[in-house]
């Protein structure tokens, strides 16, 4: 069977990850950072990205040890039947984390924007679009992410430039006034939301090129974007930002270009595109994990399963308070990030290393998981 060893370049891959990560910045606000000073969030985000580098280390090590081998296959090779549990953990985490964020977006639509049409149908439509992308393959999502990346930067850049005119330095508060506590909490909150580490663990084998360098480029880019966003939130909205559930939307709502009064609809439109990319890449990863659990299943089944789990998590988040408390809780997310970002790759890496030294593995592998 003819297989392609790598399907996307490292640059394309990390652009896709940037879009996926930036899609969640719509939910950035002082409440999600533990309250208080938004400016400290800039330091929190930087710290989270640095810790993220440590989280990423086992993933990169594993890729170096088993180049081109997707994590579900590497896990099965290293842990035998227990490897399926690793795949299952990734599938559940990807579905829960991304479904929760989708649910949060539904809450945002229902409570803040209040459109004339059903927010649930919008979510289903968004998920179906993402599923189409995942079905056509990771290359498809990555290429689309390249275009969305440009549109996203143009859209947010426009809003940032317009709102920058309203920036008032009086709104800025001194940082670290109350010590380091909030910064550390904010860093944990940022890290908890970086669920793309799980995507990276599963999908990185499909990217070629220098990965560590690109990873740090991605981390720096994400930090820069969040930093500008937080600075504008703090400088333009001031204490008003603290009263908002979604201050980024509030920021977009005050944009006014001459006779055009508001640009928030365009802004949310661009955000929806980014969310589709995020869901698409997560579903592609979910499908790969499903194939790790049930190797003989058809690719479409895995995709449907991943999409159904995400939708269930999204509706649970939007409709049930207890589910929302659990699925959007920083603690659960942080545990998920450490488990899927660092602990599980490390658990696969160590036995894989022993097997390699015994001469059982280590050869360059072809990607077996059907991602196309």
């Amino acid at each position, binding site marked *: 069977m003819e297989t392609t060893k790598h399907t996307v370049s490292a640059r394309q891959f990390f652009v896709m990850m940037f879009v996926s990560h930036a899609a969640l910045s719509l939910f950035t606000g002082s409440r999600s950072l533990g309250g208080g000073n938004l400016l400290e969030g800039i330091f929190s985000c930087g710290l989270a990205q640095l810790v993220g580098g440590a989280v990423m280390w086992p993933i990169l090590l594993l890729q170096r040890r088993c180049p081109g081998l997707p994590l579900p296959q590497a896990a099965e090779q290293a842990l035998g039947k227990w490897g399926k549990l690793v795949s299952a953990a990734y599938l559940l985490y990807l579905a829960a984390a991304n479904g929760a964020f989708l649910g949060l977006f539904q809450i945002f639509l229902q409570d803040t924007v209040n459109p004339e049409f059903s927010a649930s149908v919008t979510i289903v439509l968004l998920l179906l679009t993402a599923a189409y992308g995942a079905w056509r393959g990771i290359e498809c999502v990555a290429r689309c992410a390249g275009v969305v990346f440009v549109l996203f930067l143009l859209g947010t850049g426009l809003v940032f430039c317009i709102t920058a005119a309203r920036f008032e330095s009086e709104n800025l508060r001194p940082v670290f006034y109350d010590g380091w506590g909030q910064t550390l909490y904010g860093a944990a909150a940022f890290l908890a939301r970086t669920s793309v580490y799980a995507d990276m663990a599963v999908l990185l084998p499909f990217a070629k090129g220098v990965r560590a360098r690109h990873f740090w480029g991605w981390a720096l880019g994400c930090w820069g974007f969040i930093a500008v966003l937080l600075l504008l939130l703090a400088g333009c909205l001031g204490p008003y930002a603290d009263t908002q559930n979604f201050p980024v939307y509030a920021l977009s709502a005050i944009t006014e270009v001459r*006779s055009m009064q508001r640009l928030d609809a365009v802004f949310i439109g661009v955000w929806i595109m980014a969310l589709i990319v995020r869901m698409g890449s997560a579903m592609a990863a979910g499908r790969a994990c499903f194939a790790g659990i049930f190797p003989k299943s058809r690719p479409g089944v895995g995709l449907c399963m991943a999409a159904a789990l995400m939708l269930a998590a999204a509706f649970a988040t939007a409709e049930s308070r207890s589910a929302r408390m659990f699925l959007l809780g920083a603690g659960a997310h942080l545990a998920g990030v450490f488990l899927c970002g660092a602990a599980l790759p490390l658990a696969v890496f160590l036995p894989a290393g022993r097997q390699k030294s015994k001469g059982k593995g280590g050869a360059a592998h072809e990607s077996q998981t059907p991602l196309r």
Partner: protein
Amino acid sequence: MAGTVTGDIRRDKAFFEQRFTNAMDFMLRDMDLGGVKAALLALDGLVSKQIITLSILNPLLAARPPKDPRARLSYIEEQVLGSMEQKRERSLDTLLTLLMSGFAILLVEGCGDALVFGVQGFETRGPEEPQNEVMQRGAKDGFTESYQNNIAMIRRRMKTTALKFEKAQVGSESHTPLALCYLEGVASPEIVAGVREKLRACDLETALGAGYLAGYLERRGLFSGVGQTERPDVVCGKIAEGRVAVLVEGTPSVLLVPFLFVENFQTMDDYLTRPFYAAFIRWLKYFAFFVSAFLPGLYVAIAAHHPELLPESLMLKIAGEEMRTPFPVFLETLLLYFLYEILREAGLRAPKSLGSTVSIVGGLVIGETAVEAGVVSAPSLMTVALTAVAGYAVSRLYEPLSLLRLVFLILGGIFGVWGVTIGLTLVLLDLSATGSFGVPLLSPVSPFRARLVWRDVAAREPWKQLSKRRARVQDMPGVEKKS
């Protein structure tokens, strides 16, 4: 299977006569060549009777072939006939196909081979400028229905031995001849082999146009990875960049593969004008594409769901107009969209003399009276009209654009701007997933390569740079490398 020529002239003639029963165009001329029986077969209308008489019949009737049957054909070939295009053929199936392609066949008693002569003489259209691809400064000739003439038009422009024309055939019933045209050493051998393979796998019964084959050369998707042109200069330009052209007998359209999405915005005129103007025109086309695809959807989305996006005065004007009409803006625009498409189709199909009447009655009379009667509002009518005009700026994309317009209109009407963005992402995903012979359709935009984007996508470099930095289609970013 019909077998081979037997050498028994009565049996061989009977075979052809039986196959062409009730075919009044079938011509059979019996001859006696110094005691040796012979027959000349041809189809009326496909051959030039003058050439047959002067170059074949007259010399044959004066000939005295040898008694030895084995030496007869060699004698006729070498000493009697002076036809440039002649060959021996034994298979009766092939002879039938050749006969129907305008060849004449000579059967000689005692010979196990037939002689075939290229004496085609059917009428063909002159190389007029294609109406679908009118250029301001480009050449004024276009392909015709004869693929041999088309081959000559390309050869006249590319005087190199690297230019290859591989003969092939499709259609189990029509036996349509075609030619694969490419530049050896420039075109990727994998792409050429891929085209060859796909054409070989083509299971059509009849192929009456290039469009029949396009479906066999592309992957599923809204946008095609196969280009079509009627201009020889465009074909030459494309094959110089490593593409493969497929010339099909009976159609002036030539297929081009691989064909990238950005090529839909490129015309020959872009390369004949100054670079800055070419870049300006190209950006106009990108804008026209955007207007044509999204304007109705965005108009309905904004007017119905997000009026705050509009300037106050415009918003009030639209609201005022909408007050006068009975339908909501979504339904009204949808109605106008369908009305326009009907008028366009009617204008295309109506006899030429009625075409302008249809346009005037449809465009001016119906449009104006509908607005005056308060059935539809002027902004909606203007939106649909602007969309229609913009679509012709990128005429290659007219088919997908007309469908996209409808989809975005519905999405915008139901889900507002967000519906349009979801639709746009779906289109982007579809474009990203489609490739043409291993080359991503969105290349070099995504996967991105700055040099190629600045070379001939975002701008058009001057010829001094274009000629130095060659960009073959197989060198585009994201081209699948086989393991």
